[in-house]
């Protein structure tokens, strides 16, 4: 390889890269928070006893699961203003499209978690005369979130990386900024490597935490309160094997 690295392009443009990273993180945080909130009603509608409501919720989920995120992003940025006559700034478009997309995936994770809560626990809440909202708020959602935490975190990590797509609608995120600097400086290798490293330095610790949570859940059992010791711990000499249904 006959290439001479010039890292000064990185040091000279580091504040710009940091600004881009900051916007990437901001978009990610906003989208994750909004999706985590909106996914709760969507998941509940998806489980509604009213067939039409259930279908509508499923239709929304399938549309956003079965079309490319890039198409969704372009549609919100370019097509939606044609439909509504309102021009939406790039960053807002990005937040809308990413939120709609992540909410669809998150709602399915929630639904799976809601359905994993034993019905007897909900009935116990009914017998204590908690309202439906109180049952959802205090019994179902906390357990579903805990149970689905690995899935939710995994979706969040994917979302963080997918925010790079917003560079295509001129949102000055990390990817857009890196691409711009590399075009200006002809130093794509240094700049894009550093950009990749920045994404990695945020996503990797989150991935490590995710792995630890998954390991912990496998060792200590699920959220139903049944503490399953690892097989090795159960088989240890002198260990009293406790069987709980």
């Amino acid at each position, binding site marked *: 390889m006959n290439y001479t690295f010039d890292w000064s392009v990185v040091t000279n443009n580091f504040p710009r890269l940091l600004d881009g990273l900051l916007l990437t993180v901001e978009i990610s945080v906003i989208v994750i928070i909004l999706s985590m909130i909106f996914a709760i009603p969507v998941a509940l509608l998806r489980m509604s006893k009213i067939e039409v409501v259930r279908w509508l919720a499923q239709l929304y989920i399938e549309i956003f699961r079965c079309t490319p995120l890039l198409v969704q992003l372009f549609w919100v940025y370019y097509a939606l203003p044609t439909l509504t006559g309102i021009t939406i700034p790039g960053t807002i478009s990005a937040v809308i499209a990413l939120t709609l997309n992540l909410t669809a995936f998150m709602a399915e994770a929630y639904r799976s978690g809601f359905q994993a809560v034993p019905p007897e626990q909900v009935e*116990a809440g*009914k017998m204590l*005369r908690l309202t439906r909202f109180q049952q959802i708020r205090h019994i179902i959602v906390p357990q579903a979130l805990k149970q689905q935490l690995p899935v939710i975190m995994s979706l969040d990590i994917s979302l963080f990386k997918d925010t790079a797509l917003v560079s295509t609608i001129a949102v000055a995120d990390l990817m857009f900024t890196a691409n711009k600097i590399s075009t200006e400086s002809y130093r794509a290798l240094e700049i894009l490597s550093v950009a990749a490293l920045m994404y990695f330095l945020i996503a990797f610790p989150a991935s490590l935490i995710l792995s630890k949570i998954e390991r912990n859940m496998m060792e200590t059992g699920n959220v139903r*309160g049944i503490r399953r010791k690892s097989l090795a711990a159960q088989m240890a000499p002198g260990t009293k094997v406790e069987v709980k*249904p």
Partner: protein
Amino acid sequence: MSENSAAHTGTHRDIAAKSGDVLVSCRGLKKSFGDREVMKSIDFDMLAGDITVIIGRSGSGKSTLLRAIAGLTDPDDGTMTFDGEVVFEDSKRTPAWKQVDSHVGMIFQSYTLWPHMDVLKNLTLAPRKRLGMSESAALERAEKALAEVGMSDHIHSRPSELSGGERQRVAIARALMMRPKLLLCDEITSALDPPVAAEVLDVLRRLKEEEGIAVALVTHDMAFASKAADRVVFFHEGEIAVNATPDDAFNKAEDPELKKFIDAVRF
């Protein structure tokens, strides 16, 4: 009985229907699931302060009756009264049901304590959110309820740290938090070892004797039924085949299906 529990007893007696009054009355209750008729025009009365043991084979309609009384299942037809109020007629709950529903508690076979809360939170959630009790009042009531079931030392334990019998006793304490007049127990001891089951059943007997709480219990524990029950109700194929005192039911049983059932359970 401690001073605290004596005070607690007094409060319960204030709100409980007078012992001997009809607490629950069901007439012509019917319920089908698809083509299967699980309750065929059930007539059933329960007196305040009584322990009624409900026995019968799986699918005979015992749990469906309990769930109907609890408000978890609506019968297809029939009427129900609770403490003198008509709570179900014309295939739906009446507005009176909302006035009395908190006086009906139910405990299930599987452990239904909420695993993400400790024992104290399990007990105080409903009184605080539903009855609007203050934190300190709910705590005081929780301490008394736990004392009644012998679980005071476990107030800050997580459900996962408790044995099966302890969880069921906490479930009883949780039901007591709403000051029930009636406790419905659906096979609550079937997953427990006999000595542990006996401890749990003993708690129910004390609640009846000390608090005047009526208990309807689906169980296969014939020893408990013969010693503690005021009435024994035998379900067979969606109908009440026998409704008698324990002595009449077990020692003078004439119903061939009940005889067969008792023999099958004993051996």
